[in-house]
């Protein structure tokens, strides 16, 4: 029953990150805070971001929320990949991730871990699950220090 496609979608790394996320929680201190919501399924995500002294480099990203394996693993892998990135680099990666979901790009060696999410592009109805956390990060980084309203990926 578990065909090749499913194995591509639910790679071991994804299942492991779903089960044992490394970046669940809230950063201390919180410099950016953003909630995201997927109205069609009810999944939610709450991101907090800690920046360095310049205010332009990410020290840490953490997430809370409830969602499917794809959404949660995507958030955890994203949080890991964001450590030490400048805002501009982070926004570039958001863009790249979205392009990867269309099956048109992948990450280079430094971030190849993120490529485990590539299988999602074969399941168009699940792309929203994977991108929710990335949309939310983009909103967090583009917002002022005040948390904004919910972002929704619809």
């Amino acid at each position, binding site marked *: *029953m*578990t*065909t090749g*496609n*499913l194995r591509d*979608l*639910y790679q071991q790394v994804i*299942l492991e990150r*779903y*089960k044992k996320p490394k970046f669940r929680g809230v950063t201390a201190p919180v410099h950016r805070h953003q909630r995201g919501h997927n109205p*069609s*399924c*009810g*999944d*939610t995500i709450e991101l907090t971001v800690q920046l360095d002294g310049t205010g332009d480099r990410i020290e840490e990203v953490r997430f809370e929320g*409830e*969602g*499917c*394996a*794809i959404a949660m693993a995507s958030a955890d892998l994203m949080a890991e990949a964001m450590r030490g990135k400048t805002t501009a680099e982070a926004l570039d990666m958001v863009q790249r991730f979205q392009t990867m979901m269309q099956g048109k790009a992948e990450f280079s060696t430094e971030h190849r871990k993120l490529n485990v999410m590539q299988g999602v592009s074969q*399941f168009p*109805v*699940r792309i929203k*699950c994977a991108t929710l956390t990335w949309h939310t990060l983009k909103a967090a980084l583009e917002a002022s220090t005040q948390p904004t309203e919910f972002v929704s990926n619809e």
Partner: protein
Amino acid sequence: MTIIQEKTLSARTRPDFPILNQTIHGQPLVYLDNAATSQKPIAVLEALRQYYEHDNANVHRGVHTLSSRATDAYEGARDQVAAFVKAASRQEIVFTRNASEAINLVAYSWALSTLKPGDEIVLSVMEHHSNLVPWQMMAQRTGAVLQHVELTETEEFDFEQFKSLLSEKTKLVAVVHVSNTLGCINPVKEICVEAHKVGARVLIDACQSVPHMAIDVQELDCDWLVASGHKMCAPTGIGFLYGKLDLLRSQPPFMGGGEMIADVFLDHSTYADLPHKFEAGTPAIGEAIALGAAVEYLSKIGMDQIHAYEEDLTRYLFRQLATIPELRIYGPKPNADGSGRAALASFTAGGVHPHDLSTILDQAGVAIRAGHHCTQPLHRYLKAQSTARASLYFYNTREEIDVFVAALKDAIEFFGGLFG
């Protein structure tokens, strides 16, 4: 005996649904999302085709032959729907796009012109968004207050609490007949009796009952009843409102336009008689005619037979699901004979998210729904972020339930160990 009956009903009807005869990811399709929308039999597709190939014209607007044929067929469909729900008069059936539009019609026409600040509207926590949002909008505009009936321990409509909410302030009770998430069958007849004692009107959301059981609006004594064609073998884009004649007569129009008028001047108009007063503009003629065909199709099988067959499937479904200890199934358990609830099951499976379940089941050809099924407040009430739902119709079989349950077990195992 029941087994023979079951085999005959699905075996008899499946050839009428060509869509069911296909493979998904190499597996035979098992369509278990009937609460979202049902499949359409050939008889309904043929009615659409016949209309567009032979009779297409606008209704009530011409004296030529095609217009008269189209009008006869359209009004004939109204007769069929009126007979199907046992309305006292054909004028009590208003065609709408769907149940949501029918509810909005009652809201904008009746509630907006009737409700006063402090009046109370009683709903329940299990309502579909379609039977919540219009009333929230009316409450904002009129100053009426919303109240919500909660659930009993068995996750059914709390009738005692309902009675305690009623007072002379209650002007409207709007409740679902069969919950699309819990599958419970609400005591709508008794609800009408109690509501009428305090002079309140009752609207029944019958989206999940009309397709599955015989409905008699006169016996229920409800003031309005709404349903969507697409859940009862008809196309999308057509639904209906039943309303008691005197009440509909007293209500102002909902939308203005052609079709709903008697006499139009530049500065004012008089309105058409029922039901046309509520059908502004060219209606969904082909879809209405196809709804008539769907009603005829269902009546030929017999609603009591459909209901009995679905009870048998329900019994089997719940027996099979009971073999999966990880499941939490919402709503009441069926009685030993499968009666007492709808042929659907909303559930969560341990730590496996419903979206993941649905994707894995889809690979096995099994179509189920995952999400909040347009009952977000109910999910919040149940403290479930989302659920998976399998919902059956008379063309489903025990064998399909077996495929579904096996795929569900595989999916849980696939994620397994993860949460062990």
